[in-house]
């Protein structure tokens, strides 16, 4: 009896699937190649990465690939508790810098992007030219951003010239690429390259807000600040939510600017210039520590998933309303 209903359900399920397949045959034909490709190039390496994080992989066992000795969670344990693990060297600095870098860059590109978008959302002569000119930094390749700003930050470079000799903001010319100033030397170029895109996105979003709403608010006596807080911000929230996530992810995974700013190819950017990605690649490849490297990557992914989960809970209503 029981097995009969189960069998019935099964055939019904199959018929349902068959019907679904027939009506959506075209959709499946379109999506299946991509799905297979994605499984091959995303799922396979990721599964392999997780397996690798449980293996003893170093220069001696590298040739044995996935047949390297299985050591369970030892890579994770040594990563978290063993000070002699090569991947741990300098990782404390890298984590601290990445936290500061991500928070400061993410906050400032969003705030500054919105501020300039508000400035640009009013007619003035040459607006099109201004918009295009502002977008230029965003088109500069990020590895060029590193080289260019590394040049401008030189002790006798243009930035110190402008700050000290022209504007007299500082008494003497500071070193930007050595010591704790380095964190600013990597944050500022990232903001420079990042905010134009946010500006253009917020500008497009601002232009979708109908003027009538502001008109009504003005008639009700709401001044500019109140209009901004009660109309503009709430309406921008969905756009803001999406951009916040993308900025956050991009900044945690930032690599190019730091790796080209501090010359000599694989050079060490210093205690205040190192980021997670630069540290992790340098240490893992430098010591052939692919087991610990994979374990660290997996831990990072888990941490990021937690953050994305928090983000989703925070903005769930805005995202679903779209």
């Amino acid at each position, binding site marked *: 009896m029981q097995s009969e209903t189960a069998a019935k359900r099964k055939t019904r399920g199959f018929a349902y699937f068959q019907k679904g397949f027939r009506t959506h045959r075209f959709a499946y034909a379109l999506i299946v190649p991509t799905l297979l490709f994605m499984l091959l190039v995303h799922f396979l390496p990721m599964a392999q990465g997780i397996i690798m994080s449980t293996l003893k992989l170093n220069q001696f066992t590298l040739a044995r690939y996935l047949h390297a000795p299985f050591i369970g969670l030892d890579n994770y344990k040594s990563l978290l508790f063993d000070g002699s693990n090569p991947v741990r060297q300098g990782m404390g600095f890298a984590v601290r810098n990445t936290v500061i870098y991500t928070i400061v860059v993410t906050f400032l590109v969003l705030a500054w992007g919105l501020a300039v978008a508000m400035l640009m959302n009013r007619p003035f002569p040459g607006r099109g030219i201004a918009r295009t000119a502002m977008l230029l930094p965003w088109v500069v390749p990020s590895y060029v951003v590193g080289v260019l700003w590394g*040049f401008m930050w030189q002790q006798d470079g243009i930035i110190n010239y402008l700050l000290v000799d022209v504007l007299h903001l500082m008494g003497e010319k500071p070193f930007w690429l050595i010591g704790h100033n380095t964190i600013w030397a990597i944050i500022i170029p990232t903001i420079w390259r990042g905010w134009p895109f946010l500006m253009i996105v917020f500008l497009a979003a601002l232009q979708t807000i109908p003027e009538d709403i502001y008109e009504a608010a003005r008639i009700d006596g709401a001044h500019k600040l109140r209009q901004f807080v009660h109309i503009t911000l709430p309406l921008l929230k969905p756009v803001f939510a999406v951009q916040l996530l993308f900025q956050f992810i991009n900044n945690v995974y930032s690599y190019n600017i730091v790796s080209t700013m501090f010359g000599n190819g694989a050079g060490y950017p210093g205690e205040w210039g190192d980021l997670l990605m630069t540290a992790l690649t340098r240490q893992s490849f430098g010591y052939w520590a692919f087991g610990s490297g994979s374990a660290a990557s997996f831990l990072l992914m888990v941490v990021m998933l937690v953050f994305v989960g928090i983000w989703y809970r925070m903005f769930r209503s805005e995202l679903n309303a779209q």
Partner: protein
Amino acid sequence: MTRRTSAKLASLSLTTLTWIIVIVTVFPIFWMVFASLHTNSEIMKGITSFSLPSPQWSNYRNMWDMINFAVYFRNSLVICGLTTVFAGAFAVMAGYALARFRFAGSRTISMSIISTQMIPGIMFLFPIYLMFLWIKQALGIPMIDTYWGMILVYTAFYTPISIWIMRSFFVSIPSDLEESAVIDGCTKFQAFYKIILPLSVPGMIATGIYIFLTAWDELLFAWVLTTSSDVQTIPVGIRLFVGQYNTRYDLLMAASTVVTLPVMAVFFLTQRYFISGMTAGAVKG
């Protein structure tokens, strides 16, 4: 009267502020080109004048001769170009399917496509590096230092986000178009091929440029997966150049200018499609 003048004054000062922001924003790019036209000793002393009596165009020739720039350019063009074609094709097909049809699993697929974006690239870097080594060893197919190895990796990376951008384009095209075409006797494929594809050309251009520019900017995987200059891309070339000539800022700025120019050209030529495409994807989410 006074109210009108003060409003005018406020507007004028906001406009001035906007142009100051424009100048500060563009200044580093100007400085890159400006410095590239100086001799190295002038740069070492520190450039303090904005006049340029004798522009050193020879920096460009020297830079071009010193490293194999033409080869890096060719490699970047081949790798980024073919990546754009493949990732773009996947994006058009999958993006259309996800935008128009609610089939079993379509929601899950959409979610997993967007969630690939939060996986750190480094999560793939170690496995792909070892896998490429292993393929060479076990199957005899070289993967490291090959065009197809790089194209495979880049196509894998940029397919998900491209699907997402294309999907938002297809969503913005009203579905009545296909419905009436099907009523008129078209198959679903014909409706897609004859009606929707021509309409989505701007979207394809925007997506294509996005893929191309993102691939043009990729350094980490290119750095690890290529070792010979026959396949190394521009970012790798620049990083090697920085390592070798880290005090020759005249040449470095000339090189930086040369690799930025094509990107700017592409941007200016396609600005209309590109900005509308990027903001459409970003605003609609």
